[in-house]
């Protein structure tokens, strides 16, 4: 394992790593695996038919974390990876994913992560994915994650998806299927600046009785960046679902937010809230009255909002 300073900088940004963790891990750099470990309960192995990996969690595994970050440092590199996560019955684990791109060149770099997550009966998983870009080149840093998650009976999943900064172009697609008494919470935090564009498309199908789902999205658009957010909840049976999209718009940015509720059963209870607005003047004044400059007050509000 040979990590340079840039690798560690990116790994730290997307997964808070300062060294290769002791537990199960897979670190991918420029399309190659540079660190891999399994544990007695969590197996990490390569896919046989295409690039990517399979992470299998044994039933009953508790309080373990697997790290699967990806970093791109080679100019113009386009990486496509197919990952499958199978969370065994009644287990309780965390997955720390994420992708960091450094691009100093004039050609685009990009990563497409195509993920399938299967949360077996009674299992719980927390999946955290951070996206980050850096580099002074004119080449774009592109990240297109696509996730399909199935939450089986009584299972529970929390997806936390953060785009921290520096990603020029992103299209995120998330599709979820929730079975009986399953629960899914999606937390999305997105920051765009400059001329960046971001599009997020979330579809959740609550198929099992007593299923529930929540989408909590917060975004900040600065500069001339654009954001399109679509969140669709489909209640096919007795279920509860809620969509909340909240955005702060600044400067000359544009945001389009479209929550959609589809009830196919009279026992489906689906709600949504959506708001787009600038930073409230009274919030700025309040923080300035505590001694922050206007710039510090704005940063504090945005940092809190995207936390």
């Amino acid at each position, binding site marked *: 394992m040979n990590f340079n300073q840039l690798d560690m900088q990116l790994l730290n940004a997307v997964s808070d790593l300062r060294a290769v963790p002791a537990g199960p891990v897979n670190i991918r750099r420029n399309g190659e695996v540079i660190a891999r470990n399994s544990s007695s309960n969590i197996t990490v192995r390569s896919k046989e038919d295409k690039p990517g990996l399979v992470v299998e969690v044994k039933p009953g595994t508790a309080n373990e974390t697997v790290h699967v970050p990806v970093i791109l440092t080679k100019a113009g590199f386009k990486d496509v990876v197919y990952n499958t996560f199978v969370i065994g019955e009644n287990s309780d684990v965390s997955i720390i994913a994420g992708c960091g791109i450094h691009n100093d060149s004039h050609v685009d770099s990009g990563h497409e992560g195509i993920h399938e997550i299967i949360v077996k009966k009674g299992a719980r998983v927390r999946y955290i994915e951070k996206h980050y870009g850096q580099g002074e080149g004119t080449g774009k840093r592109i990240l297109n994650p696509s996730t399909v998650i199935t939450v089986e009976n009584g299972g529970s999943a929390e997806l936390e998806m953060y785009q921290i900064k520096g990603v020029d172009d992103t299209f995120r697609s998330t599709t979820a299927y929730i079975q009986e008494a399953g629960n899914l919470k999606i937390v999305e935090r997105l920051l765009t600046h400059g001329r960046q564009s971001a599009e997020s498309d979330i579809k959740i199908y609550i198929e099992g009785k007593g299923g529930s789902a929540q989408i909590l999205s*917060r975004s900040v658009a600065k500069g001339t960046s654009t954001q399109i957010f679509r969140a669709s909840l489909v209640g096919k049976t007795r279920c509860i679902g809620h969509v909340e999209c*909240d955005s702060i718009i600044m400067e000359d940015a544009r945001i389009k937010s479209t929550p959609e509720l589809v009830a196919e059963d009279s026992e489906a209870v689906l709600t949504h809230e959506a708001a787009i607005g600038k930073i*409230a003047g*009274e*919030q700025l*004044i*309040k*923080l*300035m*009255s*505590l*001694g*922050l*400059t*206007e710039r510090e*007050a704005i940063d*504090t*509000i945005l*940092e*809190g*909002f*995207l*936390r």
Partner: protein
Amino acid sequence: MLRLKNIFVTVNGSNGVDREILRDISIEFKSGRLYAITGPNGGGKTSIAKVIMGIYKPNRGEIYLNGEEISNLNVCERARRGISYAFQHPPRFKGITVGDLIQIASPDIDSFNLRAALRNVGLCPEDYLERDVGPGLSGGEIKRIEIAQVLARNARISILDEPEAGVDLWTMQKLIGIIVEKYKNNPDITTIIITHNQRVLEISDEIIVLEDGVIKASGAPHKIWPLIKDDIECKMKEQCRGEMAYEL
């Protein structure tokens, strides 16, 4: 000492017509004294606080803090010079916790005093420090957290805007005790409380009565209290809501 000299403030009213909300206000707030500003709703009490904090810019007049003119300083600069203001209607934030906000107010505060600031306003630190100052809190809770920030700041000029609003009687009683202990007779601190609370008026060194943007009366409580007693008691009993009619 904080000195307001011939302050005039005009705002654009909801009907589009300019309205003078403060007219020729001159007050000297001396160090070591506790001032109570009272008067009917819409009389200009909060406007004075906002002028001192730099939120409202006067059309005319000057403001001096310990001899330095601060009229052209912005809100942040005034805060850094030691002016602190607990808003009447504090805003809410998403993703900023109660602990965060008190630490912004008082960056050097230690854990003991951070917790004490919340206990002083009747809030249990364990229940509140990690909570967002957001929609999940009631108006009364937000108000108490606002007061806790001012208590934590140890500013030279502390302004509390209707601290009694949304605060239960027991907590208010406790808060008054803290105000007396912390502020009253402290030679380094000037305390200004906008209030309709009888007890606060009684403990003040000076009451200033504002009505229609002008000072109708000011002086020691024993001098002013008889003039406003009926209206304050009436308000406290909720027999009347809104305007108090002064015959001064």
